[in-house]
């Protein structure tokens, strides 16, 4: 049975384009143009993944509200924010509401589809813990490549998909400097340098929240970042 994806987007053209592309990859798509419409539908039936725009018609923060409602209905449902807004403030707010990822509309359709696939995989594996593990270990860091989980000293670091991919890109070859373009490629996002900087800042904070003395990510000025062991 095809997976069911809810797409909440107020711009008709974008909605149709995304829906077409997602359908083409074998998913079922339910599209909604406003928050009330979507939340009514969710009360009847939950989708398996939701892609939410933040500004919805008359409600500039409608997506945030919807995300909160959806999280209340299901703790595990993967949620992706897809928004034209790219300020740190919006990104942090969105992720704090429990979204699994936050994408700006610069993202290309193939990248979006890769994320959808990854999130489904993570959800499936989380449901069946006995699945075979594929783990990268770098000192206290363990990266579960199947479940997209980052573990530092046996404590789970709650990373978004984008952040996980960035940590993975860095930790795969410790000591190698990854520049911003490479990180973007690995994380399947297209953003500017400033956004990468704030992503890295957020990742550091999340690790520091788990282990106070964390300093494994090194800034190499003018070049990029590297993983220190």
């Amino acid at each position, binding site marked *: 049975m095809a997976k069911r994806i809810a797409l909440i987007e107020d711009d008709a053209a974008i909605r149709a384009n995304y829906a077409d592309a997602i359908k083409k990859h074998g998913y079922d798509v339910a599209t909604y143009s406003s928050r009330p419409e979507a939340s009514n539908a969710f009360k009847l039936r939950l989708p398996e993944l939701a892609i939410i725009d933040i500004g919805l018609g008359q409600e500039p923060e409608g997506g945030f509200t919807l995300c909160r409602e959806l999280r209340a209905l299901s703790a595990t449902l993967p949620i992706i924010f897809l928004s034209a807004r790219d300020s740190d403030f919006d990104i942090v707010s969105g992720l704090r509401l429990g979204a699994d990822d936050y994408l700006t509309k*610069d993202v290309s359709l193939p990248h979006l589809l890769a994320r959808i696939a990854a999130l489904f995989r993570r959800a499936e594996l989380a449901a069946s813990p006995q699945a075979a593990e594929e783990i990268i270990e770098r000192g206290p860091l363990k990266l579960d490549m199947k479940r997209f989980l980052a573990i530092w000293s046996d404590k789970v670091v709650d990373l978004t998909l984008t952040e996980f991919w960035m940590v993975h890109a860095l930790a795969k070859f410790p000591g190698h400097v990854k520049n911003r373009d490479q990180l973007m490629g690995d994380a399947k996002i297209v953003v500017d340098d400033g956004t990468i*900087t704030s992503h890295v800042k957020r990742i550091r904070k999340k690790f520091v929240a788990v282990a106070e003395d964390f300093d494994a990510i090194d800034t190499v*000025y*003018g070049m990029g970042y590297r993983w220190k062991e």
Partner: protein
Amino acid sequence: MFKIGLRTKLFVAVLPLFAIPIVGFGYVREMEALLKEQQEQNLITAARTIATALHDRPSLLRLRPKDPVLQKEKQEAIKAFTEPPAAVASSGATVVDPATDPASGGAAVVNPVARPPVLPTPEPEPPNASDEVTKIISGLNRAKSRIWVIDKQHQLLALAGSLKAAPEPAEQPNPYSPTSLWERAENLLLRPLYERLLTVPTEDFDDSLAESAITNGPEVERALTGIPAARRRATLDNRAVILSAAHPIWADDDVVAAVVVEETTNAVQSFTTRTLEKLITGTLLTFLLATVVLLAFASRIAARVTGLRNEAEAAIDANGRVRTIVAGSSAGDEIGDLSRSFSQLLERLAQYHDYLEQLGSRLSHEFRTPITVVRSSLDNLKMHDLPDGAAVYVQRAEQGISRLSAMLSRMSEARRIEAALREGEKTEYDPREVVAGSVEGYRAAYPGVKFEAELREGLRVFGSPELLAQALDKLIANAASFAAPDTPVRVVLRQDEMHAMIEVENSGPPLPDTNTARLFDSMVTMRESQAEGAEPHLGLGLFIVRLVAEFHGGNAFGRNRLDGSGVIMVLRLPLRMSFKL
């Protein structure tokens, strides 16, 4: 240009007020004239009174000139004090008129007042009529006046009184005796002025006069013809004015003699002088007070206006950006109004400026949706089987949309950096690490450009190393794109007094002279042309540099090399002072 301040203008504006003391002066003069007139009338009245006392008493006047010897003696006695001292001196005589002897002083004067009764003493035998007359006129005499009685032959019959005040021992009823501090100050400061400006009447004048000058005076002449008359004349030494009134003495219907009453105008004069002194003192005081008040007022206004000017000037920096809003004054007057409207004006200007600076990121946000439509459509299109030759157009469309998208994200980058600056945490760091690391990175990133670095160690600045690196990226990108082929880009970190200076220098076309300050504004670019296919320049790079510099408490500016062969962009960051020595 010669500038006239408010104070000067106000001062000039009150100058017409000086007419008030001048009018006052004229008034006093008028009054003086009136008083003199009155004095003259009084004198004539006095002369008439005396004359009346002597009317119809020819016996008193008839004795002369019975005894020529006696008369001779008398004449000489009179002469002794009526003759001018000069004449006495020239004759070699030792008689000195004490009144005119400056050495003797007022107190030592042996006053002629004492003399007239002495005069007749040498001739005791005859029933001395002249003596009688003298007694009468002495009785009628007033203070400070002198009375002559002259017969028809212009011969002096009697003389009484003196023009000068009696020399009293306690003769300092000086109206100016310093009794209080104020008067003493007035004496000290204003007295010299008064003495220069005003004729202070003096008792120290020469009142001697040739007898003939009196006896033959025009007023006497007229009185002897039966008409009372008055005359005004200066003393010989010109130090006082003597007023004389003559009145005929009648015996039956004939004029037998004339009475001449003399008085100085000193009383009137000194009254006028005192009034004028009071006028001047009062005027000076009033003007002094008014000047102080006006000066204080004008200074206050000038200070407020100057303060407002300075505030308004400080409110807008060299780039025309509003730095601080003038705090509207709460004063209710026009200057307060001005300050408030300045405040409003600047606030609106600041809002407009904000709007302009936000415009880029707003546009980028608004454009993102249509771009997404185009991009997702293209992505979908690629999933279909396209006819041969169509793929290249899809590719071109994608390139175009990517460039547009890159531009937009660069536009929002400035805003994102501003946001990062707002919540930016500051740390102390050595800029050398950042600059050195960055230069290493640039060597890899710009393989075609040679980098030279000259970096000083041990400087500490306070801010964000990430942001500094970002700013440096922009400066280097800027320099690399402008650098003439095969010339190095030079990066220098040095100390300039209290600042760390990061200079990025490249050979190439110099900056235009105008607007170098605006280079660091949002959406300002000075590039004249750009290479085909190069990344578009939105003029945001240097704006970001400026934001980062300001975040560090410093500033950024660009200048040309002295020889015009290139451009130096400078980041000037204040040093963090360590208190360890």
